[in-house]
């Protein structure tokens, strides 16, 4: 049974997402959104899906995965190949959801394949296996013929729109949030908090680890399909470990285990590099400095105290009431 508090929190998250979507749509229809802004909407959705799904592994299961881009690329190639072959046979309305399903399923199968070593490994060893898996996928894709090799897979129909991407974001949120607040989600979190205690309570470690892993892989694959249908060209080089790290940065910045945090951080981290574009050559430098400073601030005692004081100023009365 779901507690009422958790359910209310979930509804607030949905409301935030729908609200942000509505505001964006209003901006588009009133002509206040520039072309540049509109081109960033689908990438934002893709990053939200990626971050939310990776958060399931990193934040909820508590295992470090450096191969999320690998699942993304498997899904992207599967979905895009499906769309290319089905382009004449099916209209876009049916083809695109089917492509996403296909990409997600293929990625989930790879999630099972990678998940089996996961059952034995922990911590940094698991991280390195996921990283190795991502790199293997990348070099195999470059060496295959039907994936277009190093030149990339071209001519995928551009089916992805902001509205369809948003629908997928909402579906991802519904699945992940419901999973987290379900019995299975609590089992997964118990593995993070204390695997031995969880096992002694009869929780099957392997089964639940694999569940979190496969669900995350599925959504990473779906995000990859949207990516492919947005840019219409896929190159294996896009999905290297830097991409995995980019997603991991979003998850850590947003706060481990916080789905809402992942959403906000995904938006910030997609917009920030674009917003820094005016700095041209200094862009990456400033980005790196911001990253380090945020991390240092999140651990600094003075900043934490300041945060508490700010909270007391804004929510002081409310906190006081709750204490009574």
């Amino acid at each position: 049974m779901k507690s009422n508090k958790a359910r209310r929190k979930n509804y607030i998250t949905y409301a935030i997402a729908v609200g942000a979507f509505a505001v964006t749509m209003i901006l588009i229809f009133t002509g206040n959104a520039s072309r540049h802004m509109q081109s960033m909407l689908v990438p934002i959705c893709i990053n939200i899906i990626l971050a939310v799904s990776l958060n399931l592994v990193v934040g909820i299961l508590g295992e470090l995965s450096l191969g999320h881009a690998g699942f993304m690329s498997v899904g992207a190639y599967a979905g895009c190949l499906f769309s290319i072959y089905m382009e004449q046979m099916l209209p876009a309305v049916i083809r695109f959801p089917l492509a996403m399903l296909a990409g997600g399923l293929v990625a989930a199968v790879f999630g099972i394949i990678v998940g089996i070593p996961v059952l034995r490994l922990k911590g940094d060893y698991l991280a390195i296996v996921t990283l190795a898996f991502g790199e293997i996928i990348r070099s195999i894709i470059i060496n295959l013929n039907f994936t277009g090799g190093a030149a990339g897979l071209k001519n995928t129909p551009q089916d992805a729109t902001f509205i369809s991407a948003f629908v997928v974001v909402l579906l991802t949120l519904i699945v992940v949030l419901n999973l987290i607040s379900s019995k299975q989600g609590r089992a997964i979190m118990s593995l993070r908090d204390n695997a031995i205690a969880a096992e002694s309570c009869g929780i099957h470690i392997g089964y639940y680890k694999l569940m979190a892993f496969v669900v995350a892989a599925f959504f990473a694959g779906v995000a990859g399909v949207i990516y492919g249908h947005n840019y219409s060209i896929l190159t294996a080089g896009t999905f290297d470990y830097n991409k995995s790290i980019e997603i991991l940065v979003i998850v850590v910045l947003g706060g481990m285990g916080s789905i809402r945090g992942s959403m906000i951080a995904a938006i910030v981290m997609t917009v920030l590099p674009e917003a820094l574009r005016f700095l041209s050559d200094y862009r990456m430098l400033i980005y790196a400095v911001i990253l380090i400073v945020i991390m240092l601030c999140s651990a600094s005692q003075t900043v934490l105290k300041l945060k508490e004081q700010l909270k007391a100023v804004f929510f002081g009365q409310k906190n006081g009431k709750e204490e009574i």
Partner: protein
Amino acid sequence: MDFLSNLISGLSLGSIYALIALGYTMVYGIAKMLNFAHGDIIMVGAFAVIVCINTCGLPVWLAAVVSILCCIVLGVLIERIAYKPLRRSAPLTVLITAIGVSYLLQSVAQLVFGSEMHSFPKVISMPTIQIGELTIKGNALVTLVVSAVIMVVLTLFIGKTRMGKAMRAVSEDKDAAELMGINVNKTISVTFAIGSALAAVAGIFYGSTYGFIGPYTGSMPGIKAFVAAVFGGIGSIPGAMLGGLALGIIENLSKAYISTELSDAIVFGVLIIVLLFKPTGLLGKKIKEKV
């Protein structure tokens, strides 16, 4: 004979990986963090040599010394500024900071040297040795011998000196070591200094093996050395040496006999298989969890 010369160049590549992996594994052992910026120290070391020789006209040995000193200062500074304040925070926070430092080094290098590849000056003037059908490149031989000497010295340093003992103590239990009067901050700084010095040496050998250096050159050998460190059992010093050498040999032999493009995939594939059978790496200690 062909096989033997491939094996030797594999060993030479492997000893470069081993030098980098030693830095990874020592830092991991002592600070329990994955220093993702370690790969970029290699790039800094190699660029320092380029500047010393091409711009300042220093002799090779002096250039190498300057490059090693640069990397030591850089490594210690990074630890002091970016990692030390995070010593008590979550491992992932430190990991992301290390990634930030890595981006920082890459973008600074790109601003200073541009994004194009720079040719690396010829620092090792050893002729190719020909024994019957066996060909050994002079470069490979020097890399191999110097790395072997460094590894022996490092093993002696960690096993026999007071500082080495302190390092082992800190990696075992930081708090207990502090109670025994060991200066933990100093020990961690020394570890970073040694790791960075090894990375500088690796950078020089890497540059003279491949001949070109760019701002992103460090990241791939960095990742492979990380793989090597895990392969041997992260935190274990002989493990890092063994892992690095094994990785170099596998990579070179698969390049020679299977496929150049797939060599990375084979290296990573072997790693996964090894970890399936030995989940804590080749020489990693299996720690029993006590409840």
